C-alpha cells in the first residue's frame, strides 16, 4: 500500500516535471491575480474596513446579488461592456507583441478612433447596418495608419516604438483635447446655445443601442468577440500570422527565411492601431454618444495589462479583459463602504507587477518536485 502511494506521487511529480513549463505559463497570471487580491485586502484592512465585506460588494457589484440577477445580465452587463472595450485595446497590444513590438500607443490610437467615430457618427445618417460598419472601417483605417506610423519610424529611422508610441499618445491627446474638440469640431459651431463641452451628439442611426433595457451593454461585445476570432485565426492559421510570429521571435532568422519583416511589422501595427481605434469608436458610438470635452478613460493603457495578464494570446486577452471589466464595474459597488472605484487599478497594477516578475513565481513553481535547487547550467565549451 505504502509503495503504491509513493508511486502515485512520483507519477504526478514526473508528469509535473514534464509539463511544468506550459502549466506555469498558464498559472502565472492566475497566481498573480490571487496575490494582488491579497495585497489589496491588506490595504483595505489598513483603512479599518473589512476586506471580506468589500470583496462581497465587489462580487455583487460585478455579477449581481443573485443567480437570477446574474443571468438577467442587468448587473454583469456593465462589466461585460467594459470587458469588450478592454478586449479590443488588449488585442491591439497582443497583435503588436506577436510581431515583437510593444504598442504603448493603444491610448493614442483609441483617442484617434474616438474622435473620428464622433465626427462620422455625427455626419452620417445612414441605416445602422451600413453606417456603423462604414464608420468602423474609416476608424480602423485612420487609427491603423496612426499605429503603423510608429512601425514605419522604427523600420526607416530605427526609432524604438515604445518611445514613439508614448509621444504619439500625447500628441493625440493634446491635439484632440485642445484643438479639435474646442475648435473646429466643437458643439458651439453647430449649436450656439449648447451649454455642453465637447462635440455634438452623433446621429441616432449611428448609435450602438443597448441590447436590452436596464443595461448599457451593447453590440460592442459582439464586435469584440468577432475581433478575437479574427485575430486568433490570423495569428494561428494564416501565412501572415506565421510571418508575424517569426518576426517577433527572431527578426534576423525571419529575414533570412525570406520574410519581408518590414511589411510584417507595419501590417501588425496597422492591425493593432485599428483595433484600439475601434475600441474608442465603440465607446463613442455606444455609451458616450459624442466626444466629451475631456475623455481619458485610460482603456488604451489598460490594454497593455490585459494583454500581459492574458499571456499575450488572443483568447487569454479576452478572458483577462472580461475579468477586469467585471472587476472595474464591481468596484463601483465598493463605493458603498467608501472605497473608490480606482481600487480596480490597484489589483490590476499589483497583478501586472507579479506578471512582470514572473521569473520569481516560475522559480517557486519549479521548486516543486525539484531535488536540486540550483538551476543546471550548460557546460562551458570555452568559446565566446
Amino acid at each position, binding site marked *: 500500500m505504502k509503495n503504491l502511494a509513493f508511486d502515485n506521487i512520483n507519477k504526478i511529480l514526473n508528469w509535473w516535471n514534464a509539463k511544468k513549463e506550459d502549466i506555469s505559463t498558464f498559472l502565472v497570471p492566475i497566481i498573480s491575480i490571487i496575490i494582488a487580491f491579497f495585497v489589496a485586502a491588506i*490595504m483595505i484592512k*489598513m*483603512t479599518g474596513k473589512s476586506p471580506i465585506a468589500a470583496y462581497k460588494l465587489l462580487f455583487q457589484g460585478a455579477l449581481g446579488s443573485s443567480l437570477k440577477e446574474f443571468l438577467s445580465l442587468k448587473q454583469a452587463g456593465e462589466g461585460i461592456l467594459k470587458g469588450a472595450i478592454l478586449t479590443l485595446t488588449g488585442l491591439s497590444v497582443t497583435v503588436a507583441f506577436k510581431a515583437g513590438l*510593444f504598442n*504603448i500607443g493603444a491610448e493614442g490610437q483609441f483617442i484617434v478612433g474616438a474622435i473620428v467615430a464622433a465626427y462620422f457618427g455625427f455626419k452620417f445618417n445612414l441605416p445602422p447596418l451600413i453606417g456603423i460598419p462604414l464608420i468602423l472601417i474609416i476608424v480602423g483605417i485612420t487609427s491603423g495608419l496612426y499605429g503603423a506610423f510608429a512601425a514605419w*519610424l522604427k523600420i*526607416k*529611422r530605427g*526609432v*524604438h516604438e*515604445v*518611445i*514613439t508610441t*508614448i*509621444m*504619439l*499618445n*500625447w*500628441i493625440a*491627446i*493634446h*491635439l*484632440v*483635447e*485642445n*484643438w*479639435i474638440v*474646442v*475648435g473646429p469640431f466643437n458643439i458651439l459651431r453647430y449649436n450656439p446655445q449648447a451649454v455642453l463641452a465637447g462635440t455634438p451628439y452623433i446621429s441616432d442611426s449611428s448609435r450602438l443601442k443597448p441590447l436590452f433595457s436596464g443595461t448599457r451593454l451593447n453590440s460592442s461585445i459582439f464586435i469584440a468577440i468577432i475581433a478575437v476570432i479574427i485575430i486568433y485565426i490570423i495569428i494561428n492559421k494564416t501565412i501572415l500570422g506565421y510571418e508575424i510570429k517569426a518576426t517577433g521571435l527572431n527578426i534576423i532568422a525571419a529575414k533570412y527565411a525570406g520574410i519581408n519583416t518590414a511589411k510584417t511589422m507595419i501590417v501588425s501595427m496597422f492591425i493593432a492601431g485599428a483595433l484600439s481605434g475601434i475600441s474608442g469608436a465603440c465607446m463613442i458610438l455606444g455609451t458616450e454618444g459624442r466626444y466629451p470635452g475631456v475623455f481619458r478613460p*485610460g482603456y488604451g*493603457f*489598460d490594454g*497593455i*495589462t490585459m494583454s*500581459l495578464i492574458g499571456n499575450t494570446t488572443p483568447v487569454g486577452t479576452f478572458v483577462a479583459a472580461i475579468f477586469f471589466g467585471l472587476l472595474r464595474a464591481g468596484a463601483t459597488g465598493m463605493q458603498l463602504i*467608501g*472605497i*473608490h472605484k*480606482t*481600487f*480596480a*487599478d*490597484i*489589483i*490590476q*497594477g*499589483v497583478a*501586472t*507587477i507579479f*506578471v*512582470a*516578475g*514572473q*521569473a*520569481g513565481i516560475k522559480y517557486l513553481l519549479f521548486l516543486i518536485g525539484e531535488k536540486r535547487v540550483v538551476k543546471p*547550467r550548460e557546460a562551458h565549451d570555452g*568559446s*565566446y
Partner: protein
Amino acid sequence: MEVIKIIISFLSSMLQFATPIIIAGLGGVISENAGVVNIALEGMMRMGGFFAVFGAYISSNKIDPILGGRDPLAGNPWIGILLAIIIGILAGLLHGYISISLKGNQIVSAVAINVFALGGMTFFLERYFNTTGHSPSVNSFMGKPFIPILTKIPIIGELFRVMNVFVWLALILPFLVHFYLYHTHWGLRHRAVGEHPKAADTLGVDVYKVRYFAVIISGIFAALAGASMSIGQLDLFDNHMPAGLGFIALAAMIFGKWKPLGTLLAALFFTLANVVQIFIQTYAPDVLKIIPRGFFLALPYFLTILILAGFVGKATAPAADGVPYEKGEKL
C-alpha cells in the same frame, strides 16, 4: 518697466514649470545610462507627490482649532521630502528587483508601477484625506524662497522669490549629475554598465550593484520631482498629478540625448512652449485663434519624434539600455 516685469514673470514661470521635468528627467538619465529603461517616472512622481504631502501632514501635531483633527498647516515640509525620498527608494527597488534580479521586462514592470500608482494614490487620498479630489493645503515650500536675501536685489529679486528648494535643486542637480557621469571613475563605470555590461563585468565592475544604485537614485529623483509639484509649486496633492509630466520628462531626457545638461536644456525648451502658450492666452488671446493651444502642448512630443527620427540631429540610447544582464551569458 512693464516689459521687464513681464520678462521676469515669464522667466519665473519657466523655472517653476521646468523644475519637476528637470529633476525627473535626470532620474531617467541616471537609470538609462546604467541600462535600465524607466518609463515608470510618471508613477514614481505620483507616489512622491502624494507622500510628500502626506509627510508634511502627519508631521503636524497641532490640533486644528476650528475643525478639530490634525492642523495640516502646522507640519514640516522637510518630513514630506524625507517621505518622498523613502517612497522613491522603495519604488526604485521594486523596479530594480523585477528588471535586474528577475530579469523581467522593464517596460512591463514600469507600466505596472504606473497603473498601481494611479489607483494606489487615489486609494490613499481617500483613506487619509477623505476625498478623491485634492488633499487639504499643507505647510509647503510654495512661495518660500530658499535664499530669502536674494529677493532683496532690485528688479531681478522677483525671480528669486519663486526659487524654492526644488528650483535650486533643479538648477544644481544637472551639473552634479554631469560631473558624476563624466568626471568621476564611478560615472565611467556607470556608463560602461549601460553601454557594454559584459565588458564592465570582465573588468570587475559589479553590474547588478551599479544598476540597482542607478534605479534607486532614479526613483528618488522621480519622487522628488513629484514632491516639487505637490509641496513646491502648490501646497497640496491633486489627484490629477503629475498629469503626464513624467512622460514629458522622458521626452526631455531623449531630446537631451540621455545627457544631464542636454536634459536640462530640453526641459527648459519644452517648458518654453508651454509658458509661451500661457502668456499668449493672457496677453494676446487672439493668437490662439490662429495657432490653437493644442499645437503648443503637442510640440514637445512632436519634436522628440523628429529628433529621434534623425530629422533634427540624432539621439542614440545607451547600447545596453533595456537589456537585462545575465552573468556568464555568452555574447
